[in-house]
């Protein structure tokens, strides 16, 4: 028996299936995310990205499949698995009537890493929210809320961070700043799984991407390798407007029709 222990994937998703009544949102998705890797899930609206992320977080029960985070089964050991995940989900928010300081204090406690006032001040300074601690969450701008949310996602130093369309609605400056933060996470050894509509973002920061459509993964690989692989594909060339880009590959693989 081969007994050598290798460095395991931080996240392993196997044959995941999510159904809402008769509708299958995720249909047999499998992939893994390695330590220190930024992995992107790309797909049109309704492709099943957010459902996949929610199932990984254990927020919904899949019809089939397994999800392992840092070796913990999210459905059998949910608390242990969640303790190893930092999260920034779309369509979630903090309590709008709490102050920034109270939100940080609350979530630090909920993740088992209570912070002193000084530590909270340092954290706020780090995300350029110094002097904003007494502001209510609802008074923050979109960019400030994203920075706070990202900071809380990593407050317990998790090995895996899940980001659901993190740059959606941000201006170019805030988006670049967020990319830098995500790359810093990667550089510090964390793994990041993010969903995005932005092919520019995927190409800029993801080591690997999976293109998801109709609940299945249609292609996986390094963004540049995917461009090279499909450079001469007729479907990709048909939608290309010059130099073949990741967006051309994406549209070539998922079709031109607009999803709602």
């Amino acid at each position, binding site marked *: 028996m081969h007994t050598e222990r*290798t460095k395991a994937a931080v996240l392993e998703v196997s044959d995941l299936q999510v159904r809402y009544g008769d509708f299958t949102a995720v249909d047999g998705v499998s992939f893994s995310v390695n330590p220190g890797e930024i992995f992107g899930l790309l797909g049109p609206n309704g492709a099943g990205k957010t459902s996949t992320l929610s199932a990984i977080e254990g927020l919904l029960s899949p019809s089939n499949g397994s999800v392992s985070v*840092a070796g913990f089964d999210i459905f059998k050991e949910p608390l242990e698995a969640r303790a190893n995940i930092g999260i920034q989900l779309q369509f979630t928010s903090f309590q709008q*009537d709490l102050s920034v300081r109270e939100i940080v204090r609350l979530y630090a406690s909920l993740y088992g890493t209570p912070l002193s006032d000084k530590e909270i001040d340092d954290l706020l300074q780090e995300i350029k929210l110094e002097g904003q601690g007494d502001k209510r969450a609802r008074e923050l701008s979109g960019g400030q809320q994203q920075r706070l949310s990202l900071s809380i996602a990593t407050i317990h130093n998790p090995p895996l961070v899940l980001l659901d369309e993190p740059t959606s609605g941000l201006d170019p400056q805030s988006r670049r700043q967020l990319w830098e933060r995500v790359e810093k996470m990667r550089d510090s050894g964390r793994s990041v799984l993010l969903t995005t509509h932005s092919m520019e973002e995927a190409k800029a920061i993801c080591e690997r991407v999976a293109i998801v459509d109709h609940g299945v993964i249609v292609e996986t690989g390094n963004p540049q390798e995917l461009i090279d692989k499909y450079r001469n594909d007729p479907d990709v060339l048909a939608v290309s407007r010059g130099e073949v880009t990741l967006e051309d590959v994406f549209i070539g693989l998922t079709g031109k029709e607009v999803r709602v």
Partner: protein
Amino acid sequence: METTEKNITRPIPNAKEALRALLRADWSIQWRNRRAMLMSIFVPVIFIISWKSLVPVVGGAAVLSICIAIGLPAIGLMGYSGSVARDRERGVFQRLRAAPIPTWSIMTSRILVQIGVMAFMTLCTILVGYFNDGIHINLPEGLLIVIFSAIAGLSFLGLGQLVVGLIRSSEAVNAAARLVYFPVAVVGAIAEIGVFGDILKMIVDWSPLGTTKTLIAAAATLSFDSSVWLALFLTLAYGVVFAAIGIKKFDWSVN
């Protein structure tokens, strides 16, 4: 062969620590929304002031019990269900559920805060009744009234949970809570004097509002007969049934 190592461990807060953190946050939010809280406290206080003339006719315990019984569903039905529906829609629950804490601690914190508000409302009503209407309540009776209010409050919180479990949209939850509040509290209060006939009066007597009135009146006079124990049993049963259905049907997700 690649093996999965559980070598990356992170702290998990124990349930007590999580509940304490949630309670601190929920109390802060309740305090910041104190205007809405005061409105629900005003309802029984206004009733007890305006029904002062009824005290010599029906007795202080009867007036006090109906006023508190009207106030409890205002908090349990409208306050609780409204805030839960709104936070669900904003995704606050989804964010909290993503933390490594037991799910029950999220709702327990909410319920404890509402029970605290109900106890405060009950105390305010007792004090106004004492000073304005001359309804004399001693400390043991007062304490028992607060305890019974909390028990009855659970049944109305269960009703609020039922509403928010069956209805998704926060606007529809608000409308439904008001629609349910009207027959539960207002019709119940008026039916007490028999204007709708004996059958409706009997139905109201054994409704959540009626059993609450029976419990509060019994606590105010420290007189317990079999109907009080039956009222206590029914109050607990209402709470368990409403909450069980409401929790089973409750969808935490935003969409």
